[in-house]
């Protein structure tokens, strides 16, 4: 029996080196819940054993049930008929099994029927599920909707919605995008108004809503009539009842199993979530954190699936009297893919832990406040963690989603002509990957999101510390390369800042962000290579490749590649 968790040695490596005691201690509230829930862990080791066992179940389901259905799900897709959205049969089966396995409320607290897992572990499950069927992530990964209600809703709202999310009875959607408000969510128009009794209603149109046919919708709406910016927007929760009309679903390039809906809200009864006017600036930004991590997990899952296909095909396919696996050009491509996947995974779980820490610490501080205990130490810690998480989340989404496109592209290339045909899985993976660097914020927006942290050198202390550390043997050579890349980064940043030109800085930020990411990822893998000798190969290729790329990034900046943007009108004729 195949298993996408147990048989993925790199994921096992990440799991075995999670070291998340601080996160789990906070998540489990010092292990007080065992008496009420017989499945709650009794200590950290027990919690880790729980996560391992449950991920084994997810890995089994993914490999033996979900993956075999993925081709049919892609082929049939979600269908819109007589005003109703129907999932593909395979999707329904998948959701039924995941619900039976208690997997639809992984991060919800025990008392609402959830598993109370840390976000990081939930992300591992999401990676595994995405590898089996990328489109399923768009429903499985919407567990964040429930979690957003948990974080910002009232007790009454929690009791009303969360238990139904945990059982899998409800699926959710977040309705943010509108025809004229995509990347620029400040322009949201959908109106929220109150009757004389103070009840809220929603009226207007949303577009490109993933799983918009879901049972419960989180809706970003303009509650302050006459306003035009983010401060007029609030967050609402409503049922997908008959007042919410699905007008159509999109015909997409990939992720066919996930319905993308256009929704019309006809005076839909709704409840305000959290505080008025904080819809975009607080709640959506918070939701986006985790949604972007979800898409990163999806990217990683697709990449893993594509790599497995390419490796298998390369070994089986014989040309020139031998398997193409042993042709150096092909071996080289496979190595590139493998190194990307492993370095991506290191970045991903590092980022996931920061997001996890941030959320757990925020809640812990709330608790301390409520108990009248001091919390200044925690607040200082949180401040730093938020800065890092704010950088790592967009950079992770940027790197992993771009990488998924490159990896599926190369995997298809290794298949040659057959890869272009529907009969082979890699064709679907290439289509599914294409959305990952677009939705939940395009790559271009992720660069903008990360560039603040880069310019302020948020990881400066971390890098300083690593530069002082002594790496042994071959690793010290690689550590020196990372120092060199940091030097290149500093020079490039100085060049950009000295120029004091906004358009130049905007265009150069992609190079700067990439430069900064090489250093961080480089150190992550270098540390991993100290634990596991095999990782030395990964570190070697990653860092040498980064060195070459860093020089290219720097050359673009210092030779002012982008200076012609000022003359774009003359060139773009």
């Amino acid at each position: 029996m195949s298993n996408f968790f147990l048989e993925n040695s790199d994921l096992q490596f990440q799991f075995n080196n999670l070291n998340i005691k601080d996160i789990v201690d906070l998540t489990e509230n010092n292990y007080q819940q065992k008496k009420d829930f017989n499945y709650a862990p009794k200590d950290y080791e027990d919690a880790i054993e729980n996560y391992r066992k449950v991920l084994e179940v997810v890995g089994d389901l993914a490999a033996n049930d979900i993956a075999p259905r993925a081709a049919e799900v892609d082929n049939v897709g979600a269908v819109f008929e007589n005003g109703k959205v129907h999932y593909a049969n395979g999707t329904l089966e998948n959701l039924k099994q995941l619900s039976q396995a208690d997997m639809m409320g992984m991060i919800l607290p025990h008392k609402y029927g959830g598993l109370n897992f840390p976000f990081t572990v939930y992300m591992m499950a999401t990676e595994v599920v995405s590898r089996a069927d990328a489109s399923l992530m768009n429903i499985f990964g919407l567990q964040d909707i429930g979690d957003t209600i948990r974080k910002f809703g009232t007790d009454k709202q929690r009791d009303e919605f969360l238990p139904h999310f945990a059982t899998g009875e409800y699926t959710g959607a977040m309705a943010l995008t509108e025809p004229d408000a995509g990347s620029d969510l400040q322009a949201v128009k959908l109106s929220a108004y109150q009757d004389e009794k103070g009840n809220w209603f929603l009226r207007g149109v949303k577009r490109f809503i993933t799983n918009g046919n879901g049972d419960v919708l989180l809706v970003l709406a303009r509650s302050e009539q006459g306003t035009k910016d983010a401060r007029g927007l609030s967050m609402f929760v409503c049922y997908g009842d008959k007042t919410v009309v699905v007008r159509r679903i999109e015909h997409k390039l990939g992720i066919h199993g996930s319905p993308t809906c256009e929704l019309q809200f006809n005076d839909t009864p709704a409840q305000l979530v959290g505080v008025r006017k904080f819809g975009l600036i607080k709640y959506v930004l918070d939701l986006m954190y985790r949604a972007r991590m979800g898409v990163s997990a999806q990217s990683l899952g697709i990449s893993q699936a594509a790599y497995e296909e390419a490796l298998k095909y390369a070994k089986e396919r014989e040309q020139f009297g031998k398997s193409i696996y042993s042709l150096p050009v092909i071996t080289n491509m496979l190595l590139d893919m493998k190194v990307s996947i492993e370095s991506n995974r290191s970045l991903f779980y590092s980022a996931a832990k920061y997001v996890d820490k941030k959320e757990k610490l925020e809640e812990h501080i709330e608790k301390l406040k409520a108990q009248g205990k001091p919390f200044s130490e925690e607040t200082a810690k949180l401040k730093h963690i938020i800065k890092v998480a704010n950088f790592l989340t967009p950079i992770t989404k940027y790197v992993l989603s771009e990488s998924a496109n490159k990896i599926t592209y190369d995997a298809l290339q290794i298949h040659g002509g057959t890869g272009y045909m529907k009969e082979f899985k890699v064709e679907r993976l290439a289509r599914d990957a294409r959305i990952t660097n677009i939705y939940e914020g395009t790559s271009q927006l992720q660069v903008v999101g990360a560039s603040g942290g880069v310019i302020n050198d948020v990881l400066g202390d971390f890098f300083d510390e690593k530069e002082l550390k002594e790496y042994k043997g071959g690793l010290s050579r690689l550590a020196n390369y990372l120092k060199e890349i940091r030097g290149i980064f500093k020079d490039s940043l100085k060049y950009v800042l000295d120029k004091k030109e906004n358009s130049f800085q905007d265009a150069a930020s992609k190079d700067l962000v990439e430069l900064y990411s090489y250093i961080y990822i480089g150190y992550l893998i270098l540390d991993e290579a100290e634990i596991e000798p095999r990782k030395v190969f990964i570190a070697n290729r990653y860092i040498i490749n980064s060195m070459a790329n860093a020089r290219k990034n720097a050359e673009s900046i210092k030779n002012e590649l982008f200076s012609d943007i000022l003359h774009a009108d003359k060139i773009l004729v």
Partner: protein
Amino acid sequence: MYNSIVLVKQVPDTANISGKVMKEDGTVNRAKLPAIFNHEDKSALELALQIKDKFGGKVTAVTMGPARASDILRECLYMGADEVLLISDRKFAGADTLATSYVLSEAIKKVGDFDFIFAGRQAIDGDTAQVGPQTAEKINLPQITYAEEIIELSGKTVKIKRKIDGGHEILSAKLPVLVTVIKTAAEPRPFSAKRVMAYKNAKSLTDLESMAEGNSLLYVDALVHEYTSNSLFIPTMTMDDLKLDPARCGVNGSPTKVFKVESVVLAGGNHVTVEATKEGIGGLIDKLMEDHILG
């Protein structure tokens, strides 16, 4: 409300037999094969759980096997079984279907209070399909074998569709009844994450004994007490617990003796080209009828 007992068996994963696990004499080296939950027994458990979901009641999974068979009992708990029972004794070794059904039937009498006994049609190692029927005979129960669907269940009567050669047969039976189940009867549900976490440390007496052996600070009795009070003890019954007749257990109670095991290698031989003409095909049909392949 209906109570069910489900007979389950841990079997070698015969689907994954490779060259390495075949002995020279053509038999399988079981120690080298991964041990798995017999598929049709899992379907039997699923059917019992579906009855429980619909009508309420209790599901008890019972297995006879070596100590490591507690693996599949944990899996039964993960799927939703309320109770499990391991029947294990060195004296059971080498049991054929007659001896096995004797032990199982006595254990079932001990568990008591059931409306259904479910079992897989057959196990993938022996492929005899005899243990279910023999057990029913020994407890004097009606039996429906090769069950594919429960069509109706009300009061003390069940109507079941069973698979027969070339079609189906629908039978009614009075409860209690023993039912053997084929794989298509029910797709086994996945393990429940909560139950996995709750029962991952469930241990049988033998498990606890080997824990105590490896650590001088642990005492079996104290462990049994601790595991029982945490609902993590898998009850284990031996030949003596069941007050069985030693002459009817294990090798002693097994008239079936393996005479010879042959490794049959199927290989293609010479081939004959048949002309695609009336005469050619006619000749082929004559030859096939001669060999009793056709007709």
